[in-house]
């Protein structure tokens, strides 16, 4: 019931401000609020992801970055808000959205090999009860090849390094063959080679017209990796093209008074200035 009034309010708000969501954006988040035990984690988050862009979600610890992804994916209950994917509710469009969770979210001792894990990206297409057919196994193998992990297909997943595990997760998302990707810190604790490999894959995805939202921690690399940024600290602080939005002023608003981070941010912005 509250939903209706809320949507109504949102519509009026949109009409009043002239701030309409484009009908067919790859991902639109309308007035999303999430609370854990009555404590808000996300408040009135509202943005559209432009198509074919790499979008960095930046903010301090506890800003609600992972929660934003999970709320979009219907994995956590939301207090209010509406998610649309290419103009239709997320639940109807699941198949279009791929997810790369944080690496710590699974038990790597599980008795499966890398290929098994990647094939899981295909399960939605296979459907209930049916076994994984040859076509799907080949698609999984191809995805492993794309992340440079084909040689490790038969390796049990705990026998892979952290960077290799991250690439397996990425391959699983590729195997999903989605149009919108949500990735939760794919660069966390990976080696330099994996970081380069991931960047290359992200660029290939962008070239193929995919939209990728990435929770990211390292302010140094933001300008290099992302076309757009979403600065988040419970609310959206700023959202837009990196060169316009990724400014010391906005970062100060996002990170509050955390000096070391501010310095880091200032350096990052300064470096970008000199690089251009």
């Amino acid at each position, binding site marked *: 019931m509250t939903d209706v009034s809320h949507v109504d309010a949102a519509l009026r708000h949109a009409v009043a401000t002239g701030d309409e969501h484009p009908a067919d954006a790859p991902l639109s988040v309308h007035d999303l609020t999430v609370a854990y035990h009555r404590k808000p984690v996300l408040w009135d988050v509202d943005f559209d992801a432009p198509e074919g862009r790499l979008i960095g979600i930046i903010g301090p610890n506890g800003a609600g970055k992972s929660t934003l992804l999970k709320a979009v994916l219907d994995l956590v209950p939301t207090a209010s808000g509406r998610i649309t994917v290419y103009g239709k509710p997320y639940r109807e469009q*699941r198949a279009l959205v791929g997810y790369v969770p944080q690496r710590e979210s699974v038990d790597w001792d599980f*008795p499966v090999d890398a290929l098994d*894990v990647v094939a*899981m990206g295909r399960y939605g297409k296979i459907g209930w009860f049916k076994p994984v057919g040859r076509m799907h196994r080949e698609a999984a193998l191809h995805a492993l090849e794309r992340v440079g992990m084909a040689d490790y297909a038969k390796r049990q997943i705990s026998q892979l390094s952290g960077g290799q595990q991250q690439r397996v997760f990425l391959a699983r998302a590729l195997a999903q063959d989605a149009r919108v990707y949500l990735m939760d810190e794919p660069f966390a604790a990976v080696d330099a080679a994996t970081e380069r490999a991931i960047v290359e894959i992200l660029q290939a995805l962008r070239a193929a017209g995919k939209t990728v939202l990435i929770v990211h921690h390292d302010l140094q690399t933001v300008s290099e990796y992302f076309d757009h940024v979403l600065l988040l600290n419970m609310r959206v602080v700023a959202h837009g093209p990196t060169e316009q939005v990724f400014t010391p002023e906005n970062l100060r608003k996002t990170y509050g008074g955390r000096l070391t981070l501010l310095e880091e941010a200032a350096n990052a912005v300064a470096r970008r200035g000199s690089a251009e």
Partner: protein
Amino acid sequence: MPPLCAIAWLPLDTWIVVVGALGAMACALLGTFLVLRKMSMMGDAISHAVLPGLAIAFLVTGSRDSLVMLAGAGVVGVLTAVFTQWIHAAGKVDQGASMGVVFTILFAVGLILIRQTADHVDLDPECVLYGAIEFVPLDTTAFLGWQVPRAAITVGVVLVLNLLFVTLLYKELKLTSLDPALATTVGINAHLVHYLLMTLVAVTTVAVFESVGSILVIAMFIVPPAAAHLLTDRLSVMLLLSAGLAALSAALGHVAAITLPAWLGLGDISTNTAGMMAVMAGVFFVVAALAGPRHGIVSRAVHRIALSLRIVREDILGLLYRLDELGAPRISRRAFAQAELVGGPFMTRIALWSLRRAGQIVREDATYHLTPRGRSAAQELVRSHRLWESFLEQELRLPPDHVHCTAERLEHVTGARLQERLAESLGDPGHDPHGEPIPDRPSR
């Protein structure tokens, strides 16, 4: 001590083993997923929590028919899982603790219900714990023209049900056990699979527990899958292994129960079959923990010894090579002892023996020297060592007197490719920081 054949094997014994094995396999199949989901104690929790379900089913229908009991158990089993999930999520309590809260309360409710309204129903604690598998063959019914124990049919049906469940929903179980969040995003309802599994755990618990007792049920849910997990890295193999180990435990458990007392000279003291089956499963687990290929204590020790043996062998080759450079190509075993190789004199002795067997060194007049084959292996090592010393000094700016120890470790893990790259990046130096010549790659 009477020989084994003196113990008569009756058709009765066969049925005991069959029922035990069927029940054990039914539990082990589901237990595999409980163990992987880190909720091994769910079998324990549900087996206690179903008591009020049984009592209420009895109160409502007034019958102790198996189907009625199974239905009551199924409902309460799911409730157990639901309540556990609630308390876990709402109270920020860990999964095990919330399981403990739920099953003790439900168990208490069940006891009260039975006490208050069905006091005349006979509940023998010993019977609940150990079951009455010895009496299973006596209660028979006609099945396809055969006289078959009733329990064999109930337990068999449950096994078939569980088999169907794990084969039809194999990939769904795999995904939801590993990564429930991803399952939800690809449209496979992780909650649904979870509650289906819990329902079957409840039904299996009641069906099997009636004939073999709760100890065996709980043991078979956990022990064979845990042992199988130590033995394999593939889920399908783990399922087969845990079912196989469960069946084997049942068979050997019964054999042990009827033979062990006589063997041990205990005369007519009877051993409990269900208890022995659980003990057998425990024995398999211990064996798996000791001898498992990757996690096993024995195999890890063997691996460690093999590694240190290789290092000692390589150190011996390096030592002989350096002595050769100094113009002293021979060395006695006593001198090796003074060189204080890692691993100690015992390891040195084994390493010398294996190097001789491999034709890399020979012993003449109680001294050792390198063969041409040994020499080329040694040259390879010394080359790696000195290249590393140069690298550490030139590139990392370590003082020359600090590089030896690090190089000593790195030389053992440097393959041909890495060595080549090292030499390239250093511009193929002729000497290391100490002025020692860096040997060329041995010609093969």
